[in-house]
C-alpha cells in the first residue's frame, strides 16, 4: 500500500466520534431572526424529532439550536423520538447525541426524551434523556404540564397512568409529546388513526391543548383538530424532501430541509417559530390557550 494511502487509513481510524464534530461544515444561510417575544417568566423550549443520525445535517441543525439559544435562552428540549438511529453503542451515542448537542448540554440545557420506533427502550436509563428509567412520564415547567408518551406500546397500563395524570393536573397548559403523529399530511406514514382512537378521546376529555410528534421527516403544523393543536417536527436529522401532500390538514408545512421548532408560553399565549437548517424562519405565529379568558 502506498504511503499516502496508508496514512489516509490511519487518519480515518483515528477519527473517533470526539474528533468528528469538526467534519460538519457550518450550515449555509444567514443568521436566525428570533420572532419569539422573550417575555419574562415564560416557558421556553425547543422540540426536535428524528434527529439521531450522526450526520452533518444533524450537527448543522444542532448548531442552529445553539445559535438560537445564544439569542434567546431556552432551558430544555423535548425529543420526539428516533433519538438514536442504527447502532446504540457508547460511541454511537456520543456521535449521534453527546457531540452534536455538546454546546447545549454544556450550557445546562436538559433533554426530555420520548421514544420512537428506532430507539432502544433502554434509552430510558440514559441520564442525558432525563427519563429516570420510565418509558412514559410527566413533568411541570411553570404553568405547563408535559406528558411524554411511548406510542410504540400504548398498553392499558400506560393509558390508565395517562388518564390519572391528566385528571390530577392543575396546570392550565397540558402538552403531550410522542413519536407517531395522530394527524399527518406526509405521504410516507400518514396519520396514525389507530393511536388516535385511544388518545384523542383523552385529549378532548381532559383539555390537552398541544401535541408534538415526529416520525414524519418534515415539519407540519396541522389545523387544530377537536380543539387540539398538532405539530410535527421530525426533520431535525432525517428528511423526506417533498413528502407533504395536500390533504386539507395543513396550516403550515416545510419539507425542503431539516428544521427545529422553538416554543414560548407566556401566560395564556403560546408562540412558535420553526427554523430551518439554513436559519430561515419557515413558520411562526401564536395562539391563545383554548378556554382561556379573553384578554380584552
Amino acid at each position, binding site marked *: 500500500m502506498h504511503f499516502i494511502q496508508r496514512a489516509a487509513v490511519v487518519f480515518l481510524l483515528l477519527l473517533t466520534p470526539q474528533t468528528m464534530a469538526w467534519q460538519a461544515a457550518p450550515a449555509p444561510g444567514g443568521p436566525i431572526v428570533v420572532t419569539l417575544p422573550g417575555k419574562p417568566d415564560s416557558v421556553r423550549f425547543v422540540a426536535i424529532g428524528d434527529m439521531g443520525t450522526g450526520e452533518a445535517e444533524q450537527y448543522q441543525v444542532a448548531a442552529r439550536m445553539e445559535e438560537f439559544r445564544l439569542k434567546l435562552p431556552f432551558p430544555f428540549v423535548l425529543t420526539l423520538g428516533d433519538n438514536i438511529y442504527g*447502532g446504540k453503542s457508547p460511541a454511537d451515542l456520543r456521535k449521534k447525541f453527546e457531540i452534536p448537542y455538546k454546546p447545549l448540554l454544556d450550557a445546562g440545557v436538559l433533554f426530555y426524551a420520548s421514544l420512537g420506533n428506532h430507539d432502544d427502550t433502554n434509552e430510558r436509563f440514559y441520564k442525558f434523556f432525563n427519563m429516570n*428509567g420510565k418509558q412514559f412520564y410527566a413533568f411541570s415547567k411553570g404553568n405547563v404540564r408535559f406528558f411524554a408518551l411511548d406510542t410504540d406500546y*400504548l398498553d392499558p397500563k400506560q*393509558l390508565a397512568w395517562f388518564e390519572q395524570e391528566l385528571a390530577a393536573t392543575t396546570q392550565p397548559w397540558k402538552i403531550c409529546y410522542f413519536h407517531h403523529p395522530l394527524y399527518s399530511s406526509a405521504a410516507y406514514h400518514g396519520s396514525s388513526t389507530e393511536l388516535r382512537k385511544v388518545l384523542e378521546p383523552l385529549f378532548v376529555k381532559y383539555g390537552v391543548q398541544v401535541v408534538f410528534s415526529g416520525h414524519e421527516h418534515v415539519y407540519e403544523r396541522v389545523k387544530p383538530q377537536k380543539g387540539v393543536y398538532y405539530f410535527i417536527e421530525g426533520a431535525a436529522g432525517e428528511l423526506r424532501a417533498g413528502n407533504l401532500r395536500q390533504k386539507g390538514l395543513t396550516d403550515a408545512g416545510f419539507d425542503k430541509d431539516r428544521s427545529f421548532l422553538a416554543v414560548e408560553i407566556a401566560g395564556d399565549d403560546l408562540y412558535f417559530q420553526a427554523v430551518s437548517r439554513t436559519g430561515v424562519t419557515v413558520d411562526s405565529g401564536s395562539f391563545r390557550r383554548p378556554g382561556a379568558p379573553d384578554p380584552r
Partner: protein
Amino acid sequence: MWKPLSSLTALTLLFAGAVHSQSAPVDMQPYGDFSEKITAYVKLHQNMPSLRPKRQRKQIVDTRAALRAKIRQARSTARQGDIFTPLAAEEFRRVIHTVFTGAGAAAVRDTVKDPESVKGWRLTVNGDYPEDLPVTTVPPTLLLRLPTLPPEVTYRIIGRDFVLQDKEARLVIDFIPGALP
C-alpha cells in the same frame, strides 16, 4: 390487618382485569397457565442484575449484557412454545385475528404496514432483539384485549410473528410464528 401485597401478587393481579377505562376485563381462563409462566419469568428476571439510570451508555450496555447472559444460562433449555403454550397460543391467535379482521381492522393493519427487518437475523428463543431493528407499534386496540404484562416484559410484532420480549435484556422470551393474519 392490612398487609402490603407482595410484588408477585401485584403482578398476578395485573392479569385479573381492566386497568383503563377503555379496556374490558380480560378473561384469563382461555390462556391456561400463561400468567403463572409470566410470573415465574419475572421472578427470574428480578433476581438478576437490573438497569438503573446512568450517564455512561457503556454502563447500561454492560449491565444489559450481564443480564442477558444470566437469563440465557438460567433458561438454556427454553423452547418456542414454553410460555406461549399451544392453549395460550390458540387464544392469542384468536384475539389477534379478531382485531386484525374485525371493525376498525384497516387502522390496525395500517399500524403494522411497514415491517422492517435486519439482514441475516432470525427470530429464536433466547436470541437477541437487535438494537437496530425498528419497533413496530403494537396496536393499542389489540393491547386492550390481551393480558397486560408486567413492566419487565413486552409484546412485540415482527413481520407476522407475535413475540414476547424481555425489555431490559432485549431478549426474545418466546414467540408465536405467523400469528398475524
